[in-house]
Structure formats: structure tokens, C-alpha cells
């Protein structure tokens, strides 16, 4: 079987490009994969299935959506919320009407009016302020002949949005841990957080909670790695909380090698997110591979992590207090950190191994390409037998047969894989 894999790939700098580089070698041992180059308008020849990787970044994924429009196929939905992508493909290209139409399609007249507010700069961009309310995934879902998702959260959101096609779940793969020595960063314990520093990564809450922790545990250190988002005044916040260089170690964007070394140095990893676009966190997966205990937001994919590997902090009025309690627990209990780390390592190996992920992908691709024909053939066998005894398509018995046949797949009996 041969498929076309539309995705960003290295050297493009994106999480999904890294993802493709990780998965493709194992996948190619199972199926024949052609990777069209970025911007390609002509589909590869003789493919059985077109697979489109869609994320929320317009720079990386706009050309893939355009390819999907030309030729519908299987969509790997890395983020459920695609508002930023759609905004980039409309407003970003001077197509305000396109944005209005997209918002109206999803949010009706209210959506269109809000979109006018965005275009007139009367209200903040909705992809920042209300992304969960206006996901703008409708067009992609409408073009998808099937979906691959990395979480139950995205599956449920897709179903909630009315998607009725087949959905396959494939977990995010874990990177093999490189043989780097941990970076020499002090702290007892060292608490690390990786990624952009901004409000949606709950940086204000984390800084506040860490400041409280440090009053009890003066040896604790917070390692902040990643670019500070525009408009987020980190220095002022640190100053206000009395967090000086002894308590907080700051690094900006780091390369992959440095990233692993810094992650390996940490005793606890914090990975907070709200609102969520439905994404799976590559840094959280790396932390699992390293056998590190996690503190995460109780939201989206993060909620699906087993309790044995992650302490989950609800995004509510008590968020900072709960986060503080979680940090205090892990700071004071090395035995708990060790047990959670062991469980994390086991989870990464068992659920997120690259070969397992490739096998699940191959299964989804093969079923997406040929499953419908198989279902039709089996149904034809059964239908012939049923017709021989006078059971037509409208008979109650036919519905029961369809129900019993639901094990065959999403096209039979009305049940999806997801």
C-alpha cells in the first residue's frame, strides 16, 4: 500500500516536523510512504491514500489545507482548535471576507458579528481570547474522509462538532532519550518548565506558586526555558514576587541537544496549559521518556495522563493554591518523585514507543484505504442471505444485523472507531 504524507518536515522548525521525522522511519518499514514537498500542488502518483497533518500554525499547515481541499483524504488532527490557522489563511492574506464566512459557518450571525469586531480591532483576536468557543475546524472536518487523533479529548470534540466519519486514536510517539549528561543546573529540587512563557502556559500562576514554595523550600529552583511571548512582562513579575537569579534560571529558545540536557537535569516538570487547542505536548512526552514526574493542567489531553505519572491542577479559582500544594508535595517527597518517574518511564515505553505508534498508524491507514470495501463485501454477503429469507433493508431485523456487525467498522451499524 502506498500513501502520500502531507506534513511539515525538517529542517522546518515545528513540533509536527519533528514528529514526522520521528515517526516516518518506523512507518516506512510497514507501508510505502511518499512525502510531497512543501507547497506541492501535484499529488504523487498511484497512492492509495492521502494523509494530511493539520495543526494550528498557518505557516506550517496552510499549504496542506489547500492540498486537502483539492483532494479530500485522511486527516491527522494535531490540534482541534484551528482558529489561528484559519485566521492566517484569511485575515493573514488580506481576505477578511473569508474570515467572516468561516466564523459565520461555525458561529452563525453572532460569529460573523464577532469576526467584524476582530477585523475592526474592536475586540481582542478570538484565537487568543475564545479559541475553545470558535474552533473553526469545520472545514477540515468536512473534507476529512477519516481522522487520526492523539487524544480522547480531540476525538470527543470532533464528535461534538458533528463529525461522523471513522476516527482512529494513535498516541504521540516518544523520542528515544539521547545520551546527554544532564546540564549542571542547581536546585533542590530543580523544577523545570519548557515552552513559550505566557499566560496560556499559566506562567503567572506558576511563578506565584513557586514563590510560595520557595518561602518553605529556599533551595528550590525554577528553570524557565523558552521564548517569552510578546506582551508578557516576565521581569516585572519576577521582581514583584521577589524571585531573583538564585531562585529562577532563565534560558530562551534552545536547540534539541540543550533541551534534553536541561530536561534531564530537572527533578519535576511542570506543563500547564489553558486554554488548550487540543494539542498533545511534545515536551510532556519527552519528560515521560526521561522518567520525570509531571505537574499538568487538568485540561485537554493532559487530563488523560494516568494519575500515576502526573499531578493534575484544575484550571479554576484555586489553581495557584493547588499548584503550590503539588509542588510542595513533590519537592518534599523524593520517594513520590521516584515512583512517578518510574511510572512515567514505563508509560512512555509501553504506550508511546515509536514502533507501536507506527503499527497503529499503519493499521489506521490500511483500514482507511480499504476498510469501506471490506465492509461492503461483508454486508453484501449478509444482505444476500437476509434477502433470501425476506429481510429487506427497512426490516427491524436488518437494523439488528447492522448493530451486530458494528465490530466491522465505523461504516457499519453507525459506530465509529472513536
Amino acid at each position, binding site marked *: *500500500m502506498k500513501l502520500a504524507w502531507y506534513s511539515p518536515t525538517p529542517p522546518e522548525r515545528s513540533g509536527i516536523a519533528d514528529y514526522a521525522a520521528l515517526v516516518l522511519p518506523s512507518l516506512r518499514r510497514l507501508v510505502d510512504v511518499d512525502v510531497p514537498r512543501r507547497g506541492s500542488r501535484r499529488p504523487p502518483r498511484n497512492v*492509495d*491514500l492521502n494523509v494530511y497533518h493539520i495543526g494550528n500554525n498557518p505557516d506550517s499547515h496552510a499549504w496542506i489545507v489547500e492540498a486537502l481541499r483539492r483532494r479530500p483524504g485522511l486527516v491527522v488532527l494535531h490540534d482541534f482548535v484551528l482558529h489561528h490557522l484559519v485566521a492566517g489563511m484569511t485575515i493573514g492574506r488580506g481576505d477578511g471576507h473569508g474570515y467572516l464566512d468561516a466564523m459565520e459557518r461555525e458561529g452563525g450571525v453572532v460569529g460573523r458579528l464577532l469576526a467584524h469586531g476582530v477585523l475592526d480591532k474592536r475586540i481582542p483576536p478570538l484565537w487568543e481570547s475564545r479559541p475553545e468557543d470558535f474552533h473553526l475546524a469545520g472545514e477540515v472536518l468536512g473534507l476529512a474522509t477519516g481522522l487520526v487523533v492523539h487524544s480522547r479529548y480531540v476525538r470527543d470534540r470532533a464528535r461534538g462538532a458533528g463529525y461522523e466519519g471513522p476516527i482512529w486514536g494513535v498516541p504521540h510517539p516518544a523520542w528515544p532519550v539521547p545520551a546527554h549528561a544532564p546540564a549542571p543546573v542547581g536546585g533542590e529540587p530543580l523544577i523545570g518548565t519548557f515552552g513559550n512563557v505566557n499566560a496560556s502556559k499559566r506562567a503567572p500562576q506558576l511563578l506565584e506558586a513557586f514563590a510560595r514554595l520557595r518561602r518553605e523550600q529556599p533551595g528550590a529552583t525554577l528553570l524557565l526555558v523558552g521564548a517569552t511571548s510578546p506582551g508578557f512582562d516576565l521581569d516585572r513579575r519576577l521582581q514583584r514576587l521577589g524571585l531573583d537569579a538564585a531562585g529562577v534560571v532563565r534560558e530562551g529558545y534552545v536547540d534539541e541537544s540543550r533541551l534534553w540536557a536541561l530536561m534531564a537535569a530537572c527533578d519535576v516538570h511542570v506543563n500547564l496549559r489553558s486554554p488548550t487547542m487540543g494539542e498533545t505536548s511534545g515536551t510532556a512526552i519527552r519528560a515521560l521518556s526521561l522518567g520525570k514526574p509531571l505537574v499538568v493542567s487538568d485540561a485537554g489531553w493532559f487530563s488523560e495522563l494516568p494519575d500515576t505519572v502526573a499531578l493534575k491542577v484544575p484550571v479554576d479559582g484555586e489553581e495557584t493554591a493547588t499548584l503550590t500544594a503539588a509542588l510542595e508535595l513533590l519537592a518534599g517527597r523524593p520517594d513520590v518523585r521516584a515512583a512517578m518517574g518510574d511510572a512515567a518511564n514505563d508509560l512512555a515505553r509501553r504506550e508511546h514507543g515509536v514502533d507501536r505508534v507506527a503499527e497503529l498508524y499503519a*493499521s489506521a491507514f*490500511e*483500514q482507511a*484505504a*480499504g*476498510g469501506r*470495501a*471490506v465492509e461492503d*463485501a*461483508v454486508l453484501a*454477503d*449478509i444482505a444476500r442471505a437476509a434477502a433470501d429469507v425476506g429481510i429487506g433493508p427497512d426490516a427491524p431485523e436488518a437494523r439488528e444485523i447492522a448493530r*451486530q*456487525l458494528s*465490530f*466491522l*467498522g465505523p461504516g457499519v451499524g453507525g459506530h465509529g472507531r472513536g
Partner: protein
Amino acid sequence: MRIAVCRPQVPFAHGGAEIMTDALVAELRARGHEADLVTVPFKWYPGSTVLSQAFLWRLLDLSEVDGRRVEMVIATKFPSYAVRHEEKRVWLIHQFRQAYELDGTELGQFGPDPVDRATRRKVQDLDRLALGEATRLFATSANVAGRLERSTGLVAEVLPHPPQALPYRCDGYEGFVLSASRLDRAKRIDLLLEGVALQPGLEAVIVGDGPDRDRLQGIARDRGLNGRVRFEGRVDEERLADLYGRCSAVFYAPIDEDFGMGPYEAFLSGKPVITAVDSGGPLDVVHDRRTGLVVAAEPAAVGAAAAHLRDNPDEAARLGEAGRAIAVEVTWDRCIDRLLL
């Protein structure tokens, strides 16, 4: 207890699964249970027929029969475990191997086109669903359990079953090596024939019949083994017990076998088993230099092992007795106690 033992039936064929399930029904009845065999003919080709046939099992209603409740079903091999029942036990003989480890080999069924690929995946999905429904899951060997766990993530308890009932005995070690299994390529009886050809004076008796018979007889003829290798075809129970009782060793080296009753039959006759490192199920009980000889799947290694046991009857007896100690522990009492627990 009313128990339905479920087994697909391949008309006009009779092998290990049939022997095992027939015996299970008889042994359940002997212990006071009301047991019966439920079979549906099974044809697995062409194309998606394998799924249509599985669906037949899915439609069966074995919750009650003639107004009387069926309290348990014991399903055994694909696709009988697709049956629905609230108390479904599965004693797995094997999955549909063409969808798994045989895929892409000459024994495989599914080609590279998308429809064949999808059919194979749907068989795997069905396995995950149907086997996942089992209230208890057993496998006849570590090999079968291992394949199951690798393919579905489901963990089965290993529960071997006794071999067919024969008047087992040990009448000595007369020097010949015995092969008693169906004559098909997967049993690799050609390894034995080629091995005998390499060992002057070594003799073998081949019991059984099957599609590989002509080819095997051709090998024996081409190697000039007439007089040293005897094909006995199908034999009755008394004759089989007699051959087991008199041989020096039993050859049983199929490729990646599910379970294999041969070693148990050999051990109950006090005879060591020659098997191969890639034989699968037999390796649960055939341990090198403890209950037999485990060799490379090559004629020279097989021939040398058989000649060694012929020339060292005391060692053959010691290995065979060690095997007997294992085999006598595998009883229907123990199997049924665990199955019904």
C-alpha cells in the same frame, strides 16, 4: 453446569484442535457437567469471507437453549471466540495466524492491496474485541500467549492440555526415531529424513498422513533411505502406543507450533524429544539436555541428535523420564479446575 464448548469445523479435516475439544467435552461430562460441542463450518477465503464467517459466530445466541440457561461457553480457536456470552471463557488454541506472524510469508493469505490489508486489520480488531470480552483467558502454550499479548496486549494464563489418551508405556529403546504428526510442510519432517541420510544406520518411522506425503516419500527415495525410513501412514491407537513405547527418541520440530501434543505423548512413553530452536510451543516442555535435545533447524543437527540418543540409551531414558515428570502433571482434573474457577 451447562457448558458449550465452541470450535470451528473445517469439514473433512481432523487434527489436534478436534482431539482436544472432543476430549474436553468428554472430560467435562465425566465430572458431572452437561457439556456439548458447538461447531460452525469455517471457510476463510477468498477475500473478506473470513469476516463473514466470523459474523456467523457473532449471531449465535448461546445464552440459553430450549428454555434452559447455558451457564458458560468455552471458545477455543478463531473465529469461535467471536461468540457472545456473559460467561465467555477462551482457551485459545490459536488466532487466525494469517493475519499475524504468517502475514507476508508463503503461508500468508493477505496480499498488498488495500482491501486485503484492511481485511487483515479487521480480523485484528475483531480479536481485540472478542478476546477482550472473555471473563477468563487461557492459552495452550507460552507461544500462543506471547503472540496474543504482542498482537492485542491481552494477557492469557498458560494452560496446556493433556494429549490424546493412549495406552502409553515404555518398552525399551530400540534405536529408531519416531515422527508422529500430520504430514505437512510446517512439521518439517524433511529435516528428519535429510538428517537420517547423513547418519549411517540410523532408522526412522514416520506415522501420519497429509499433503506433504508424496514429497517426503520422494526425498526418502532420492536419498536411498528405503529400508531405513518406513512410512506407516495412519495407525490405530495400539500401534501408535507400541511405536512410542519402542523408539529411542521422538522427532517433533514444526516451525513456530502453537502447542504440540507430540512432546507430551513422547514423555508419557518415557522418550526424549528432538525439537528445534524455532519450534514454538514444544519449547515450553522440551528443554535442552533435560527433557530432550533442542537443535538448530538443520538436517545435520537433527541427524546428530537422533544418532546420539540412539547410541546413548541411558541418556535417552533419563531425559524421557524427566519429561514424563512434567507430562504427568498436565491432567484434565487440573485443566478443568482452572477453566471453571
